[in-house]
């Protein structure tokens, strides 16, 4: 119960922060909107053009941008606000606190999905039906979980190594491409396919595309869900030692509040 309470209050706090953050508003609403409109124009000449594919792809791009920027900055922002000592000194584990905050980020990022459906249906007048609504209802929470796991991993990295953190923010477009959000990864160089398969966002996009516009065969869908869960849990497991390292470094060097 205590964990649930922390998750709820952390998510609520984060939603409050995000509601007034213009950069995040841009990432969730404005950028996916323009990407969706631009890509609709670019892909609509394809004989097999499916607007649902674009809607889902641009929505996932919005989810990813939100997680990327929120995740890399979520601990740093506590430093800027001067509250990191209070957070680190509180009884709950550091990882749980920031995982809770990122739950709020995921809830906020759902706006991107809603907005992109509006773009496709209202602006372009397409009929946007889901091929497999039941499968989509399973894929969506799994996809959100996958992106949340990546955010949980990014958070400590963003504060541990600043030069690395600087390059993390440019991962936006590479993951758009490696994740197959807007085009199949088969168009990418063959050597990069292995990287795609190791990324939870790729399996998230795959599951959402498969259930919204693809041909859904339950056996192959189950395999996608399994890969999605496996890569997500592996990402979450990778994050654990980084949180311990944040606290250890801060306590040993006394640099917790240094910006």
């Amino acid at each position: 119960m205590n964990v649930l309470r922390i998750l709820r209050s952390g998510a609520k706090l984060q939603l409050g922060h995000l509601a007034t953050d213009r950069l995040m508003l841009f990432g969730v609403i404005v950028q996916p909107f323009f990407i969706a409109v631009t890509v609709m124009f670019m892909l609509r000449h394809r004989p097999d053009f499916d607007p649902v594919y674009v809607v889902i792809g641009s929505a996932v791009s919005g989810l990813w941008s939100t997680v990327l920027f929120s995740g890399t900055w979520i601990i740093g922002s506590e430093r800027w606000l001067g509250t990191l000592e209070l957070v680190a000194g509180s009884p709950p584990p550091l990882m749980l606190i920031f995982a809770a905050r990122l739950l709020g980020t995921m809830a906020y990022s759902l706006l991107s999905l809603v907005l992109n459906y509006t773009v496709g249906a209202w602006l372009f007048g397409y009929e946007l039906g889901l091929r497999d609504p039941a499968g989509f209802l399973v894929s969506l929470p799994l996809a959100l979980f996958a992106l949340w796991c990546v955010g949980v991993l990014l958070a400590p990295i963003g504060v541990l190594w600043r030069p690395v953190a600087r390059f993390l923010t440019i991962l936006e477009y590479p993951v758009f491409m490696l994740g197959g959000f807007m085009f199949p990864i088969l168009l990418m160089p063959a050597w990069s396919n292995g990287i795609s398969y190791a990324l939870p966002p790729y399996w998230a996009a795959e599951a959402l595309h498969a259930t919204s516009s693809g041909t859904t065969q339950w056996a192959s869908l189950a395999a996608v869900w399994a890969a999605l869960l496996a890569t997500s849990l592996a990402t979450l497991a990778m994050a654990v030692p980084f949180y311990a390292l944040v606290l250890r470094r801060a306590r040993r060097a006394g640099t917790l509040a240094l910006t």
Partner: protein
Amino acid sequence: MQALRIFAVSSVFSYRALFSWLRPSAYIANKLAFPLLQLSFFAMIGTFGGAQPLSFYVLGNAILVVYQAMFVVATSVGNERWEGTLPYVLASPAHRVALFFGRASVHVLDGMLDVIVAFTFAVVVFGVDLSQAQWAGLAAGIFVATVAASAMGLAIGAASFLVLDASFLANLAMFVVLLLSGANVPIAELPGWLQAVAWALPLTRSVEAVRGYAAGADLLSGLPLLATDLAIGLAWAIGGYLLFSWFEERARRMGTLDRV
């Protein structure tokens, strides 16, 4: 001479203040890697769409890398208020025209370098063929596009004093340009009212001219396009200066300099 000195000093300081470039890694990440990755993304989507040849998307997005100049000019003007330095700027007796337009000059040179890197990337990674290119025209196109983008940045920076923060407006402008400049979507395919917006942007004709020069078009054929973009860019910059002057006058009169 005094105005020239202010022009130069303003220009250099606005460049040095960018992105807090304490390390080269920040420059590489923000100024080089990001635009090239964005170029690759849209080029790959274009390939998947198949409506135009690959070079259409790669060249269009390579020239659009000039949005970097627009972005940094806009933020270096607009962030004066966020950084708390705007009162010092406005209290100085410096000539306003030199001060305002000086913000853009080094970014024009830097922006041209960005585009040259993007064209090299286009050739090496995407195999774009520039063997028939009209090099003088290409250079003129890159120059005009960078000047026009910087001019747009001045206007956006001035507008950010009134509306929102500069980064938000500059990011918004970047996506408008990606959609409407003809780099990714042919202008003729846009609805009529969007075409009108597209032609009001100071980069639309440069994209067209550069594509022509890359394919070997005659130098004279693209010059009217570039001259029009230069004129439109100048109009954007003058609009920005007028906005800046109006903001300054109103801030002095009403004491609203630091109002956010």
